[in-house]
């Protein structure tokens, strides 16, 4: 896909339009373009996390301080967040998240599969409302809905971006 049509551009516009000023992330190949756009933008403070759960706690603090944040991560990072999600659900704190999938369609690495298959389940169990984007043009649509739902109804939400959108990592096999 050409860079011009990449979902990252539309999602980045949504971030700006929805007044999200703090974006935290643990990188993933599928997120690299969006991360670059956020890092390059003066109006957005980016925070590179050492572990995804920091981004959940960070969102608690940004919301206490009156700012909106967004968390970007790979599906394996969902497992690192489980206990920290309890803070958002207990305090009714909004946080939209974008989760790029591993361990799903076309996966090469067997060790990615358990967490990939479990990601949506554990998020739901912890009170995160989830949406799945299976096609390129569904990413922005799901993200807009997830951002609105999060900040209008005070809850964590997540868009899980399918490997059919991202392309499965093949290690050349």
């Amino acid at each position, binding site marked *: 896909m050409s860079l011009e049509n990449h979902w990252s551009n539309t999602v980045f516009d949504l971030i700006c339009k929805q007044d999200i000023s703090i974006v935290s992330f643990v990188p993933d190949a599928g997120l690299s373009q969006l991360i670059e756009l956020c890092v390059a933008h003066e109006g957005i403070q980016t925070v590179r996390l050492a572990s995804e759960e920091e981004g959940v706690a960070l969102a608690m*603090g940004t919301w206490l301080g009156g700012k909106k944040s967004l968390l970007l991560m790979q599906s394996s990072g969902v497992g690192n967040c489980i206990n920290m999600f309890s803070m958002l659900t207990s305090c009714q704190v909004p946080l939209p998240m974008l989760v790029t999938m591993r361990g799903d369609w076309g996966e090469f690495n067997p060790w990615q599969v358990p967490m990939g298959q479990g990601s949506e389940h554990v998020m739901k169990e912890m009170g995160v409302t989830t949406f799945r984007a299976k096609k390129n043009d569904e990413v922005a649509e799901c993200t807009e809905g997830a951002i609105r739902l999060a900040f209008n109804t005070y809850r964590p939400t997540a868009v899980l971006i399918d490997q059919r959108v991202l392309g499965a990592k093949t290690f050349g096999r």
Partner: protein
Amino acid sequence: MTLLDRRQVVKRLLEPRSALLVVAGLGAPAWDITAAGDHPLNFPMWGGMGGALATGLGLALAQPTRRVLVVTGDGELLMGLNSLATIGVVQPANLAITVLDNEVYGETGKQKTHTGFGVDLSAVASACGFKNSSIITHESELTSLKKEVDGSGLIFAQVKVDLKSDELVLPPRDGPLLKNRFREALLGDRCHFSN
């Protein structure tokens, strides 16, 4: 060596109360800030162990003109040690972190934590890029610590405290209440009307 009393330390930091925004890690630090006087700009945590520093970082980034103090314990910090690295990269100049280090998990039966075996949290903070990182062991150091906490710059202070169990002074447990009263005190009524 006589170790410091955690309640006295926190009281010295919060009295008189400056314009500080205060986040406390779960357990004893949350009771300590409450014992010093419940305040709408206190955010005592009842869960999310390991998340106090990152919560403080989020608040510091959202409110760059306000001073943020995180009060937490050694066990809580050890669970989110990676946040020292994250904060070291961001270098927020309005964030002060004090760790009340009694070298045990006080709430669960006083089992020793890593600091009880010599893990040096202030050295970890220094290695993560905190230029002002110290170990506080004496009462005479609290006056300058209070000044630094109320002042400016990123600071990390590991305060060695005794093992004494204090009376429980519990803050409200209702998460939405803690969140909303904090936001209202900081942002005004308008926070309920717009996002």
